[in-house]
């Protein structure tokens, strides 16, 4: 069985190799992607792909929320508007389960699937089969200003606790000079503030659902999480944090207005880039904080390329995946933009590379990724997979509404108790509607 599959895949590989050389089957691929820096860079390098394979690429670059709405509509109606889609760890297992994605079990030997970081490969697999190839992977970690930390007379441990973070944040805050001790996401949306607070709640012992899919917002750990967050942000957060997401915080940090920032590991390359950041040489890194309960508050995510089932250009789409998520693509970027700017978090070999090891955030990124466990995300057992999300189709909608209630707390429009009560009610309602 394994043997026959192997030989079949070799045959497919041969066919793919042959098609690469023949100019007759040059296809035009339509690829939907998100407007993140690494993807924008990839667009600029598309010529390399066209040169190597003869296929051309049409890019549909959209902002994250619009992209999600657009590709979800298309895949669930089998619209076929795209030959490749950029999706994440949340969508992949759900879509794969519905049979909407082409399995990536016949990638070439040269591609070396085993080199993918196991955490990423697992998160992008369903029933042990890979359905999306990680373009870059991320966890979250603390980025902090070494100069401000020193000024506050404190030293950041490699693995701090939330109590230390609060102490440091308050000590670093200097509102007259527009320096906020800590910047965190508060923006409504499951992929924005929702992702942060969920990951944070894991370290407080909270969970979304118990083993019987009963929502858990009426439990103490959730109240603790929110109260801690609101207290911390009101004492040391920036004004208007209720509408700050990844981008807002990134630009605050780059302008030197944050003492600490807990967010995606990919941000490390932006805050240490002297062309974009005013504090590039003063950034330190540490693991996301915990509460001594055994779980840290870091998440795990990958932006990955997947092929919708039923596309006529499957072979060409696979060639693109093998190009975009390969080690040679990483080398191409390194050659043009430097090692600090290569797409991180996808391949083991990258972290073994001595050139990359000299990048200041490489080790902490890897450590953060390795410390995240989507299969056991919480202190108490849960029936779902996923750290900052629960991989069920209903989650995105529910979590967006829940995070809107939370954001209303951050903006001072309601109390923590009111928000949790509403969250519990609307989650219960939605889960009932979905038939749990």
């Amino acid at each position: 069985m394994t043997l026959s599959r192997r030989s079949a895949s070799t045959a497919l590989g041969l066919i793919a190799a042959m098609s690469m050389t023949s100019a007759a089957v040059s296809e035009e691929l339509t690829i939907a992607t998100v407007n993140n820096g690494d993807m924008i860079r990839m667009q600029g390098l598309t010529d390399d792909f066209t040169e190597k394979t003869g296929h051309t690429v049409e890019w549909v670059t959209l902002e994250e929320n619009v992209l999600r709405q657009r590709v979800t509509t298309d895949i669930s109606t089998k619209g076929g508007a795209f030959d490749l889609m950029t999706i994440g760890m949340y969508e992949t297992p759900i879509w794969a389960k519905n049979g909407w994605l082409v399995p990536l079990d016949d990638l070439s030997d040269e591609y070396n699937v085993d080199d993918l970081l196991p955490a990423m490969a697992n998160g992008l697999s369903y029933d042990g089969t890979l359905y999306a190839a990680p373009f870059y992977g991320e966890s979250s970690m603390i980025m902090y200003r070494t100069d401000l930390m020193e000024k506050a007379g404190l030293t950041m441990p490699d693995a701090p606790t939330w109590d230390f973070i609060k102490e440091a944040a308050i000590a670093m805050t200097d509102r007259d000079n527009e320096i906020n001790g800590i910047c965190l996401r508060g923006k409504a949306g499951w992929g924005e503030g929702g992702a942060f607070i969920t990951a944070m709640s894991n370290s407080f012992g909270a969970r979304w659902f118990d083993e019987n899919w009963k929502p858990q917002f009426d439990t103490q750990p959730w109240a603790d999480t929110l109260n801690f967050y609101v207290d911390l942000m009101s004492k040391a957060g920036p004004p208007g944090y209720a509408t700050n997401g990844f981008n807002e915080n990134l630009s605050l940090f780059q302008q030197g207005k944050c003492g600490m920032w807990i967010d995606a590991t990919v941000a490390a390359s932006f805050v240490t880039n002297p062309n974009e950041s005013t504090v590039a040489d003063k950034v330190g890194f540490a693991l996301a904080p915990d509460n001594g309960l055994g779980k840290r508050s870091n998440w795990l995510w990958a932006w990955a390329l997947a092929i919708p089932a039923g596309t006529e250009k499957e072979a060409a789409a696979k060639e693109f995946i093998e190009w975009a998520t390969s080690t040679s693509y990483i080398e191409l970027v390194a050659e043009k933009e430097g090692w600090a700017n290569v797409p991180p978090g996808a391949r083991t070999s990258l972290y073994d590379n001595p050139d990359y090891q000299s990048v200041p955030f490489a080790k902490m990124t890897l450590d953060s990724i390795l410390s995240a466990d989507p299969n056991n995300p919480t202190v108490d057992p849960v029936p779902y997979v996923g750290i900052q999300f629960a991989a069920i189709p209903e989650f995105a909608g529910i979590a967006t509404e829940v995070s809107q209630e939370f954001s209303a707390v951050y903006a001072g429009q309601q109390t923590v108790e009111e928000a949790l009560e509403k969250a519990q009610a609307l989650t219960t309602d939605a889960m009932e509607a979905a038939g749990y």
Partner: protein
Amino acid sequence: MARAVTTNRKLINTLIAWAIGLLIFFPILWTILTSFKTEAQAISDPPVFLFFDWTLENYSIVQERSNYMRFLWNSIIIAGGSTVLGLIVAVPAAWSMAFVPSKRTKDILLWMLSTKMLPAVGVLYPIYLIFIELGILDTRAGLVIVLMLINLPIIVWMLYTYFKEIPGEILEAARMDGASLKDEILYVLTPMAVPGIASTLLLNFILAWNEAFWTLNLTAAKAAPLTAFIASYSSPEGLFYAKLSAASTMAIAPILVLGWFSQKQLVRGLTFGAVK
């Protein structure tokens, strides 16, 4: 208008009107100015108004990232196509409503307007499925049809109000002279209705140009107009005010210029029969 106006009063009017005009226009002006700044200048405190190092860098970055001309071309085709098609369908309808009114004419008109109130999101899935079925997903033709249908009620209504202003006697006189229905529309009615048709055309072009729900959800790469172009700039990583401003300026500039050139026409025509 023979009222004597003192220079003083005219001066005060002028000052107030200019102040308010500039205030209303300021957000657009500021966006255009910001598009020529560097990212650091775009957020500097205190803000710089005119005295900064003007740069075209943002425009070249935006152009490098996305092929502006193609989005622009799609926008022109889609907005123009839907407007022309809409007029072809609407002119006869409005003509018959204005000159051969029946008891139900007004009901039909009001019903047409009420179709515009259907919430677009509610029917996204049905329309998407129909588009797949017809194979017109991500085609300009598909969008031309949808936008034509969306704006058809407004076109019919606007034309109806113009046509009603045209005295019926003239048409009857033409009819007496033996003009056929075709001649009547082509040679008598149309010339009189040109200002009305022109402003209908303009208004509809603007509405179609700015429509952002269907144009975004029914396109991928090939038919995507400027609304999709702007959707990739809403939150890039890091500082982006200057780039956002450049992309915004590129998205609104064509229609702004068109609007300015034709504003007299628009003002003259935009009466909706409000003026007798």
